[in-house]
């Protein structure tokens, strides 16, 4: 009798214990979505400052957000995100009003204290100091360890690249703060929209045992919170049901790393994945042969470049570099290699520059006769011109290089491909350098975020002594510090002439593009960007 009672009790108790959970599980009918990507992150962390990469940009907006966001369902125009409004106090100061009632993943309400902390020395800048355009950045050389809260060396370096002159962020009141710059800067608002300026929770950082513990699971305000992260394997998010922008439409969002493009395609065809990212154009036909699937995506704000070394080889003569720029049939590359899914950009500038866009500017025209004449005029003797190349670091990179080499040989230039393993070998000053590939993104809606960052005095090309131009460097100073809009635009126009025509530092090839395979039944709009938007406003699965 006792045994029966005990059994009955246990049955009732276990039934009672399981019923509420059963009810909750039944009520949450949101889907579990799997996204296959070529690579999750490049830094093996999820810290927005440390993870400055195209692949990182894809996932960041799912868990951390900016004060001023970009409209991923539009044309990337600025839009309020964690800030509801912002105004100029002076050339050096911008005041930001915060959205009220925003909850972090740990339940804390976002306040101005979190903004101050996000842009603090402890979390971003280390012991670096704000400087003007041409000042040297001091570096923290301490070695990161798993147990310490010291920032890894690269974090302050990146932070100062993003915010070279930011002195501090001040609290005005609980929901208002001010960004204070050392120098006049018309781009403070733009920098707030850039990758690396996402807001993180102060308490979570302070409670983490080490920087690495924080960086593997940053606490943000985004629609999804991190459940687990295994570098090189998978990143799993759960819905953040207190999200200020509405209940997220996906219960579990899982990004899995599938390095082989053929496997990503096979996986989505087999029904294992809901999205397969980073497809090459040649895979599009295979995917679209399945009536249930489609390929979306296209042009993103990133431009592919051929970059020149003006100190070695025959490229010392600017006419040879000019000839290289005129020998390229960019439209043919777009039509044949990219199957028409890319386009030739109007020089190194982006449509979202708005008033700063130099209208009427184009890539150098394809004119083999002019190119041949320039080669003849320069008295080129047929010396080898090395072209250092990585194996498909960029989509279609090797095929593109072979096409370019043929075009350059057509005008009589002896360009020779040299395969390299990594970027260090591309930049290596040992041996002859002449041409290599690169790409350029604008981090925000102003040319100062693009052309000067790579080709200006602080840019890599000048730092490794590949190219320099005194006029260009003066123009960079104007673009960085002037608050006169007309003068800034004039400086940018002249920069394009110097860098793309008179003394070519590079030449633009085509606008970069990403291609994502998805199920046709999923009503989801791809952004004109690397970022993927899984908010409720972009999902009718």
């Amino acid at each position, binding site marked *: 009798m006792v045994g029966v009672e005990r059994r009955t009790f246990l049955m009732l108790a276990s039934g009672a214990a399981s019923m509420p959970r059963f009810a909750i599980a039944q009520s949450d009918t949101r889907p579990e979505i799997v996204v296959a990507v070529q690579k999750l992150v490049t*830094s*093996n962390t999820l810290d927005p400052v440390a993870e400055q990469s195209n692949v990182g940009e894809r996932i960041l907006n799912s868990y951390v957000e900016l004060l001023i966001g970009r409209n991923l369902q539009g044309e990337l125009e600025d839009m309020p995100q964690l800030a509801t409004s912002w105004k100029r106090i002076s050339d050096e100061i911008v005041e930001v009003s915060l959205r009220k009632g925003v909850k972090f993943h740990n339940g804390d309400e976002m306040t101005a204290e979190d903004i101050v902390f996000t842009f603090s020395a402890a979390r971003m800048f280390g012991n670096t100091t704000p400087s003007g355009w041409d000042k040297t950045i001091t570096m923290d050389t301490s070695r990161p360890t*798993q147990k310490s809260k010291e920032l890894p060396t*690269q974090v302050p370096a990146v932070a100062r690249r993003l915010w070279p002159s930011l002195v501090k962020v001040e609290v005005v009141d609980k929901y208002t703060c001010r960004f204070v710059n050392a120098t006049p800067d018309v781009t403070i608002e733009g920098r707030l929209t850039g990758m690396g300026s996402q807001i993180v929770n102060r308490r979570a950082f302070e409670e983490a045992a080490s920087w690495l513990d924080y960086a593997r699971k940053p606490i943000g305000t985004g629609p999804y919170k991190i459940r687990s992260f295994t570098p090189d394997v998978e990143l799993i998010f759960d819905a953040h049901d207190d999200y200020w922008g509405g209940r997220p439409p996906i219960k579990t969002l899982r990004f899995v790393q599938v390095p082989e493009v053929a496997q990503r395609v096979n996986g989505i065809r087999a029904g294992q994945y809901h999205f397969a990212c980073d497809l090459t154009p040649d895979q599009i036909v295979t995917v679209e042969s399945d009536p249930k699937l489609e390929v979306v995506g296209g042009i993103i704000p990133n431009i592919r470049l051929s970059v020149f070394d003006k100190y070695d080889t025959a490229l010392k003569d600017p006419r040879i570099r000019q000839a290289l720029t005129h020998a390229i049939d960019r439209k043919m590359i777009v039509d044949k290699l990219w199957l028409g899914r890319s386009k030739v950009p109007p020089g190194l500038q982006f449509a979202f520059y708005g008033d700063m866009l130099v209208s009427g500017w184009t890539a150098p025209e394809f004119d083999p006769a002019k190119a041949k004449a320039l080669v003849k005029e320069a008295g080129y003797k047929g010396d080898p011109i090395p072209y250092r190349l990585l194996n498909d670091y960029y989509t279609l990179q090797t095929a593109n290089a072979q096409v370019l080499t043929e075009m350059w040989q057509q005008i009589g230039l002896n360009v020779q491909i040299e395969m390299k393993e990594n970027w260090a070998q591309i930049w290596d000053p040992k041996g002859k350098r002449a041409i290599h590939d690169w790409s350029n993104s604008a981090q925000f809606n102003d040319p100062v975020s693009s052309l000067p960052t790579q080709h200006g005095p602080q840019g890599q090309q000048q730092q490794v002594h590949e190219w320099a131009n005194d006029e260009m460097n003066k123009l960079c100073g104007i673009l960085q510090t002037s608050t006169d809009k007309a003068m800034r635009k004039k400086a940018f126009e002249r920069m394009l002439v110097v860098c793309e025509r008179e003394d070519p530092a590079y030449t633009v090839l085509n606008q970069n593009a990403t291609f994502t395979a998805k199920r046709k039944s999923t009503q989801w709009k791809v952004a004109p960007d690397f970022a993927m938007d899984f908010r409720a406003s972009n999902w009718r699965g």
Partner: protein
Amino acid sequence: MLLFATKRVARAILTVLIVVGCAFAALRLSSDPALVVLGPDAPPSAVAAFRAAWGLDQPLWQQFFYYIAGLLRGEFGRSLLNGADVLPLVGSRVLVTLEIMIPALAIGILVGVSAGAYAALRHNTPKDRLVMMGAVAGFTVPHFVLGLVLVLIFAVHLGWLPSGGNDSWRSAILPVVTLSTGWAAVLARFTRSSVVEVLGQPYIRTASAKGLLWRAVIIRHALPNAAIPVVTTIGFMVGGLLAGAVVTESVFSWPGLGQLIVTSVAARDVAVVQCVLLLVATAMVLSNMTVDFLYTLLDPRLRGGRH
């Protein structure tokens, strides 16, 4: 026997040191890890600071000395990317790799040795040729081709199995079949030729002539004598368990040691690569030592180092 064991252990340690030393030098001389980790846009001041922080600005011999000293203290280093201890990272991947490698090896041995012996005992018959045709096909088809074909058939068209990943035991079936096919094919060929050779020896005729059952002749005289080349081959396979699935893991997105090696080499995360190579070299050397000792059990003439 003690001299035999001592010599082999000393040789093993030397081999591991040479492998680790070569990898150490190659990884640092082929490119600058600082520039690979920080990326092409990193300012030179940051690159210099990174090199100083990780000791990459010191002479190579000094870096190697510190590395060996660390190993002797049980420190395998930290990831250049994020400062994490590399040993737990590598250890977790070893287990994932072994999840497919051990079943694949077991199936490969079972199928390969059985098929090889079967073919040898039917030497020069259509059955022998059929088995050997299968073995040659299994040996010559690269893993990445076989893997993709299996995925197309069983995942894409039939929808029976996952195309990749490591979500459940079903995810392991295709990688295991891919790996075991190659191993079974190699072992079948070795076993067949070894058994055929042994079957022609005078002591087999003697054993038959003295009236032993053919089954007993095979089990007691033919198979043990044919085992040495087969054990050698299996030894290599066991030694390669950790690093032998680089291609297969890539094809099936299996998050094991192979995938870690590929990403770490590309990212020049030298501490991770060195730790992996140390483990792989140690596994290979231990496996070879085990084979050496097994030789002495199988063939008493080899004891004492006599060959």
